[in-house]
């Protein structure tokens, strides 16, 4: 396992966190969010692949367990600080330059809609080095391309340690394509989110 701690040195404050997760994602997310405290002020935007593309209860499930507001991201909705957003099933989720969400129904990417790649790429475009991107467990290749762009545009890149991931395909695919700033187990990612908050820019 490699953990590079250099990111604090050249990483300025972060304005938003994007997270991608697939198979095994619900448990992984609950673990990394366990340290979230009320008053956490960074927006966190999550694409979680779900088997069913119709209505989903994910936002409700997390809302019951977490001390921060949890919503399904809506089209044209401005991104609020301190809120955890989930992508709606069946639609791609993007971030626009005016810091609002947009939804779309283009083709699936790696059989997935929402696609982690699309969220990461659009977020990288908007926030550039003021973005942290986290890629977790999953059984496909989604997120790898997006992660590379986040890295290219100077954002902080974090990939779950594939040895610890419930399904390692997704983190491994991303590691094949880019060298992230940190490779961490879930607890480490949770702690890092809290640290990012202390260094956040508002």
């Amino acid at each position, binding site marked *: 396992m490699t953990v590079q701690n250099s990111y604090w040195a050249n990483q300025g404050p972060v304005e938003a966190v994007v997270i991608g997760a697939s198979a095994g994602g619900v448990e992984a997310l609950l673990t990394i969010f366990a340290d979230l405290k009320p008053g956490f002020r960074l927006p966190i935007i999550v694409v979680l692949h779900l088997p069913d593309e119709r209505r989903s209860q994910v936002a409700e499930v997390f809302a019951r367990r977490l001390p921060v507001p949890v919503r399904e991201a809506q089209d044209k909705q401005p991104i609020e600080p301190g809120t955890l957003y989930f992508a*709606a099933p069946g639609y791609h989720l*993007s971030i626009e330059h005016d810091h609002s969400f947009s939804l779309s*129904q283009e083709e699936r990417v790696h059989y997935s809609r929402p696609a982690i790649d*699309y969220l990461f790429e659009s977020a990288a475009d908007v926030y550039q080095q003021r973005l942290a991107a986290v890629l977790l467990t999953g059984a496909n290749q989604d997120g790898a391309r997006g992660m590379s762009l986040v890295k290219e545009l100077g954002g902080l890149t974090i990939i779950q340690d594939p040895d610890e991931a419930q399904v390692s395909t997704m983190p491994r695919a991303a590691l094949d394509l880019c060298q992230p700033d940190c490779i961490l187990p879930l607890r480490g990612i949770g702690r890092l989110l809290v640290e990012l908050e202390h260094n956040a820019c508002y």
Partner: protein
Amino acid sequence: MHRNTDIELRLLIEAIYLKYSYDFRDYSGASIKRRVNHALRQFDCNTISALQERILHDPTAFMQLLQFLTIPVSEMFRDPEHFLAIRQEVVPILKTYPSLKIWIAGCSTGEEVYSMAILLREEGLLDRTIIYATDINPRSLEKAKQGIFSLENIRAYTHNYQKAGGQRSFADYYTAAYDYAIFDKTLRENVTFADHSLATDSVFSETNLISCRNVLIYFNKNLQNRAFGLFEESLCHRGFLMLGSKETLDFSDYSKQFTSVLKQERIYRKL
């Protein structure tokens, strides 16, 4: 500082507007960018500037690019609960009107138009209804006029039709020929298909009901407001507005001019 690709993208969109009068300037940026990048690969162009040169000098290349820029995906009785809600909550009110004008904006290849026509026929309303079905993509409109859909989707459509409260056998509405289902042409007797852009054109008629589904998510807030303005102007007092399942008036300038009848199904009425 802008990156080269962002500059090129803006210039391309501007060139399309100046040359062909299609206005994509106020579409959601992230999705437009992806679709142009996708087109680059298909056109075998290395840069957006190269693509711009191509389409400026070759109208047929532009027509091809338009197929990438507009997202034509559709299905019959898409979101069956929505059509069921129309049947149960909206049709009883429509039945009190002596005649009806319906505008389906962004009708794409026509699946939504035929679905609406089938529903209206079963409710005994089709004969006194005029439907305006509009889109900016001439190829899609041409397909919509034909009413011929691939047979491989018919199973899914039949399922949707039943879930949407369909009262007959779905096969009554089409004849199968080879790999196609040819829809009953009497369904489109009162349908006018027309080229109309929510971005550049104005209102053409008063209407009782407007359905604009899965179009507005591709617009930015400004352009959504323009479209809602057109709908507000076109609808008669208490007219109905139907949106796609992830579209909402909530973040627009027009949220106060409409009331929501069924929030979940995105059915609104003009106040």
